């Protein structure tokens, strides 16, 4: 078991390296270096050259063979842009944003709370409502109630999230003044974005959880439970729910890393100073270090979340023995 956990933890390394390589390749290799941007609008070519040197943009991208051949030490081959980045990240030093000059670790720390303030309630409300509705669907499976829920959830899924946000903000905040239009001052400011987030996402979740529940409904053990004399409700809440918990858990835990990245759209429209918005900004401005850091942390959390899923699996499903 311990060996399994350690092994799974170690997979973080190749995946993270891969992610870094991917993003590095896109932004640094193909995107060119950002020295001129750092130098400002009136910069002289000399200044740009100096910045290139200072940031190490003049070094080879992946391997410094030249240096290695010269000094004869294989370690010198790693004196390159990519491996410097790797070394830096290994020490959890993400450097500074090109755009805001801030330490990225600080930006992350500042942004994660607002992001979680929005995503966590959305996640929890959506999860509990979707599961409750999915149970109702399973209870009334094949009836008009079930079909209505399915159709409504597909309708809800078919509207662009952007339209939900725009319409929601326009009608409920601006026209009706039920909610503040914009801001991040008190929990009241979160009501509308959370409500919109839940409505935009619930269709998909409901449909997914319903499928899982219905799958379980046709298992042999359900027949046994009925043969014992269990009522619909007992079968549903006791037998089916606990079995369905396993696929649901997988789905849920894998969604957790995305809580951390926040919601791009909601954050931009409602002025929530979270990581989603920070990421969008970084995309717009080509703020490489921020993107590197976001992607890096995102992938680490993602891999860990996957590990947690597997561990929860054993907890929820006694059939699975990890060796």
């Amino acid at each position, binding site marked *: 078991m311990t060996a399994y956990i350690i092994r799974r933890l170690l*997979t973080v390394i*190749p*995946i*993270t390296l*891969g*992610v870094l390589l*991917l*993003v590095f390749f*896109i*932004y640094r290799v*193909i*995107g060119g270096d950002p020295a001129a941007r750092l130098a400002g609008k009136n910069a002289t070519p000399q200044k740009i050259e100096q910045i290139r040197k200072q940031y190490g943009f003049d070094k080879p991208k992946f391997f410094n063979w030249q240096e290695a051949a010269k000094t004869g030490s294989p370690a010198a081959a790693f004196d390159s842009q990519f491996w410097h980045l790797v070394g830096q990240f290994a020490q959890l030093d993400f450097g500074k944003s090109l755009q805001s000059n801030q330490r990225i670790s600080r930006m992350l720390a500042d942004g994660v709370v607002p992001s979680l303030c929005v995503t966590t309630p959305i996640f929890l409300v959506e999860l509990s409502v979707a599961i409750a509705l999915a149970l109702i669907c399973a209870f009334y499976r094949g009836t008009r109630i079930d079909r209505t829920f*399915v*159709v409504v959830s*597909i*309708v809800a*899924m*078919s*509207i*662009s*999230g*952007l*339209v939900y946000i*725009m319409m929601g903000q*326009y009608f409920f905040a601006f026209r009706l003044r039920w909610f503040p239009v914009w801001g991040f001052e008190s929990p009241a400011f979160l009501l509308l974005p959370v409500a919109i987030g839940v409505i*935009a*996402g619930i269709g*998909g*979740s409901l*449909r*997914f959880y319903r*499928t*899982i529940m219905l*799958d379980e409904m046709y298992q042999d053990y359900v027949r046994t439970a009925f043969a014992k004399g269990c009522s619909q409700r007992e079968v549903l809440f006791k037998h089916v729910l606990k079995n369905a918990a396993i*696929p649901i858990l997988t*789905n849920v835990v894998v*969604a957790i*890393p*995305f809580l951390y*990245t926040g*919601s*791009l*759209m*909601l954050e931009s429209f409602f002025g929530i100073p979270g990581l989603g918005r920070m*990421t*969008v900004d970084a*995309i*717009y401005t080509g703020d490489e270090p921020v*993107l590197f850091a*976001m*992607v890096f942390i*995102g*992938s680490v959390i*993602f*891999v860990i979340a996957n590990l947690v899923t597997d561990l929860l699996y054993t907890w929820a499903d006694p059939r699975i023995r990890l060796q």
Partner: protein
Amino acid sequence: MTATAANSAALAAKPQTLWSTAWRQFRRNRLAAACLWIIVIYVGIWLYAESVYWTAYLRDVVPSYKVTDFDARNAAPSLRHWLGTDFTGRDNVAQLIQGVRIAFEIAILSSAILIPLGFLLGALAGYFGRWVDNAIIWLYSVVDSVPSILSIISISYVVGRGMKGIVIGMGLVAWVGLCRLIRGEYLKHKQRAYVAAARALGAGHLTVMLRHIAPNVLHIVIITFTLLFPRFILTEVILSYLGVGIANEPSWGVMINDAKQRLWLGVWWELGGATAAMFFLVLALNIVGDALRDALDPKLKTAEGSAT
């Protein structure tokens, strides 16, 4: 019961393929059948839009939907312009029709990238296992760990903006889901006795992989395509909002994005028109996709959840 059904079926006149059985089941779902008609109508519009585009292209003239009328800009709906005109006086209905073309082109071209990619990698991983599997799992874990919107934008940053960027971006990101499903199916099928039978006859790995197993998992491709189609359309809206959308042709995402500011002026028809055009197609595709899955492979768990 199944055996009885099979026996009686054996007496049926025509050979029954999986497709004909599935089609019969699909047809019984009235809603899905109706939605199929909606899709057919959209396909018709798409073909019409293509013809408009290509005619203009081949004649080297400006296509009608691009003809601007500066003095008639931002017009309200009228008999001439059912949904009014846009900021340069182009007819909104004509724009919406071209939006159908763009939506179909995006979906089809992205799929043309992701389906072979996802299928091949999934098949290789599932069939060969061991290090091939490990390498492919590594690859898709890497792709999967980066939020998809970020990846799409990054890729389009490299390959260029507009249609090309979106199509390649989405294609290179969305293959993971299909790859997982295909890999799982291959893992399952390679245990089946018919694979052992083929091997015992001396069939090579490639033959087994492509001629024997592939037809058994092909329906997943179709289901994935119908379920991804609406996702592509919805993602395009977000990409447009983020500024990596289509630039030189009218797309729904761009239209929604353009119309959002005029909403304040009570100009609801622009946003409403684009939203409705998109909504009906997405809805129809979602319902048909669902019904297809129920008909072809009810146990298949395709990934769901919101893209944002």
